[in-house]
């Protein structure tokens, strides 16, 4: 079993769609947290299979999208130094900063390199002892342990030319911020399947209790998403709340303890600004005190960075699920993947890019 085609079969998808239609008796709004889930929903056209009374809104589960513009500007400034090599995941290269993006800096001569993982950046540092190698460490709890490994490896190797620019975010505080907001529209959540693979879902139980919402850790294939939706809607219709696990082939209640230990060894929670949303307390991860020598923000003084957001971009409303991309006046006009005004149009996990790629001019259910 390859876990791909089996979860994309049309007859089963249609059966779930029917079951969902039978279950709902009133309108419900469900948010999927993870940008990867947003893209899967759009790519497979799953909204077309749902009854009109079910509204899907897309959450801020795109670590690229929520990285503050100041951090992008800082990364660009670091990359522009002649002695540095800036390494990054592919997505970050196209996110607009105040003036340009990392790919633009690269074409102007900065040494910017795409890597698949943080350990590749460590390898580059070993191969270039004369240069400072900085890894733009972005991600939710899914990628944080891998990034932590890089710091641990650098420490063990005694590297003095490796550091990370940390843009890590945590899901539970973001969920609480959404649920606690006065304009919250969300009735239930599909939690991010790969975040939960690492962290388990224990952290969501108190949140489900406190706000009386159903939270269902869900996978990324069409049948996962439909099953997860069915589970959330069944709970909502029954007036029940709590955490139920859809993604059982990957998620357990306790998660990956080894990865969690790795994470805790290197990082600790801190307040973090989310682009377009604002500061959410304890929603970020920063290097622990004994490892701050690996913090690129401390190592490199790039002076004052004054960030300028586009006035037109409504990323904040998009990331909170208050608006959908087609409702943005710039969507598809001034703001396209070629000339993005904000991060959600760039990132492969961003809601705006998902809508642009898969649904522009089609089936807009706003």
């Amino acid at each position, binding site marked *: 079993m390859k876990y791909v085609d089996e979860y*994309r079969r049309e007859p089963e998808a249609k059966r779930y769609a029917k079951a969902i239609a039978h279950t709902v008796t009133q309108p419900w709004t469900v948010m999927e947290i993870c940008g990867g889930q947003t893209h899967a929903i759009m790519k497979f056209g799953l909204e077309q299979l749902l009854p009109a009374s079910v509204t899907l809104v897309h959450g801020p589960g795109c670590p690229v999208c929520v990285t503050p513009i100041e951090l992008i500007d800082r990364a660009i400034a670091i990359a522009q130094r002649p002695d540095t090599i800036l390494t990054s995941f592919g*997505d970050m290269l196209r996110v607009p900063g105040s003036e340009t993006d990392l790919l633009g800096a690269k*074409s102007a001569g900065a040494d910017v390199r795409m890597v*698949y993982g943080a350990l590749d950046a460590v390898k580059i540092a070993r191969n270039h002892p004369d240069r400072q190698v900085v890894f733009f460490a972005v991600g939710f709890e899914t990628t944080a342990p891998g990034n932590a490994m890089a710091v641990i490896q650098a420490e063990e190797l005694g590297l003095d030319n490796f550091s990370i620019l940390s843009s890590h975010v945590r899901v539970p505080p973001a969920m609480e911020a959404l649920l606690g907001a006065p304009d919250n529209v969300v009735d239930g959540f599909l939690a991010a399947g790969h975040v939960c693979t690492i962290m388990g879902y224990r952290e969501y139980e108190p949140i489900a209790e406190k706000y009386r919402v159903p939270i269902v850790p869900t996978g990324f294939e069409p049948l996962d998403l439909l099953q997860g939706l069915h589970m959330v809607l069944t709970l909502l219709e029954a007036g029940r709340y709590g955490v139920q696990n859809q993604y059982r082939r990957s998620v357990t209640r306790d998660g990956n303890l080894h990865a969690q230990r790795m994470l805790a060894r290197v990082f600790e929670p801190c307040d973090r600004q989310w682009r377009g949303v604002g500061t959410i307390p304890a929603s970020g991860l920063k290097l622990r005190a004994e490892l701050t020598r690996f913090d690129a923000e401390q190592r490199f003084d790039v002076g004052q960075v004054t960030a300028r957001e586009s006035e037109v971009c409504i990323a904040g409303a998009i990331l909170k699920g208050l608006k959908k991309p087609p409702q943005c006046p710039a969507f598809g006009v001034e703001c396209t993947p*070629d000339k993005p005004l904000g991060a959600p149009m760039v990132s*492969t996990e961003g809601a705006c890019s998902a809508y642009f790629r898969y*649904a522009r001019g089609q089936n807009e259910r706003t």
Partner: protein
Amino acid sequence: MRTLPDLSRITCPAPLARYATVQLAHGGGGRLSQQLIDELFVQAFGNPILEPLHDGAVLNAGGQRLAFSTDSFVIQPLFFPGGNIGSLAVHGTVNDIAMCGATPLWLSAGYIIEEGFGMKELCAVVEAMREAAAQAGVQIVTGDTKVVDRGKGDGIYINTAGVGLVREGIRIGADRIEAGDAILVNGPIAEHGIAIMSVREGLEFETNIESDSAALGGLVAAMLDAGGEDVHMLRDPTRGGVASALDEIATTARLGLRLQEAKVPVREAVRGACEILGFDPLYVANEGKCVAVVARRAAERILAAMRAHERGTEAALIGEVTSDHPGRVVLRSQVGADRIVERMSGEQLPRIC
């Protein structure tokens, strides 16, 4: 002392507003490439022969129609599973000529070689070109060699240009496409791009994935033998993949294309690699594939001819042309819902998590 040209006096006919410098994406084969072509090159050179912007140009030489095409090869790595930059350089131009409904006959080969490039490697490249040309039935009849200083070239760059004779009674063009036409592909997609990626990034897969780089002159001849005038359009989906090629066709034909995801052939190993990397096979480069738009009544006949040829054994009917959603490609996904298929705007980037 040489005077350098005064660049401030040059007025660009159509200012490319957003970019002051050329970006990698301008060569990527997607939207930005198209913009550069439309706004700079076509504006500067514009003529009726260029304007169709097909894989090659069709010239009229005193009654005999010729197809003429050129392509430059800058690929890294130079050697990859299934070929090297040399074989690619032959196949690429041969295929562009074939896509004009022509028999490829003559190629030129221009080399820009970096000082210090290994002579053994150069021999291997040239040997690959000799073999590819022989298999494709073309002759390399003229060429050029330049050597640049160390550091000023990426090992070796190759340009090939080609000439072929357009077949009697055949005219390939977007204007020949009609609603109801069938869309065909000659075999499994996305192999070249993934093969390259696997070497470049040092990724290993359980099954060896090889580039599909191959000359398609013979296959196209078989298709034209079977379908004649009913073959309306041919395209080889290189950079940007099948999706970008079909999107271009939809745009120039001003018709809609409907694709069935379940019918697009993808080898399991390639599909697995795409899943891990977060790539959509529809956007991954091919070097031995062609998509054809043919009259519906001829589709089965042409498919049979393709399947009888070694380059088309897994040929498939993957969609149809419609008058709905003109200029758009719509894909019916495996789960039975629809989505739009667009040209890529840059490089596909691997998934993070």
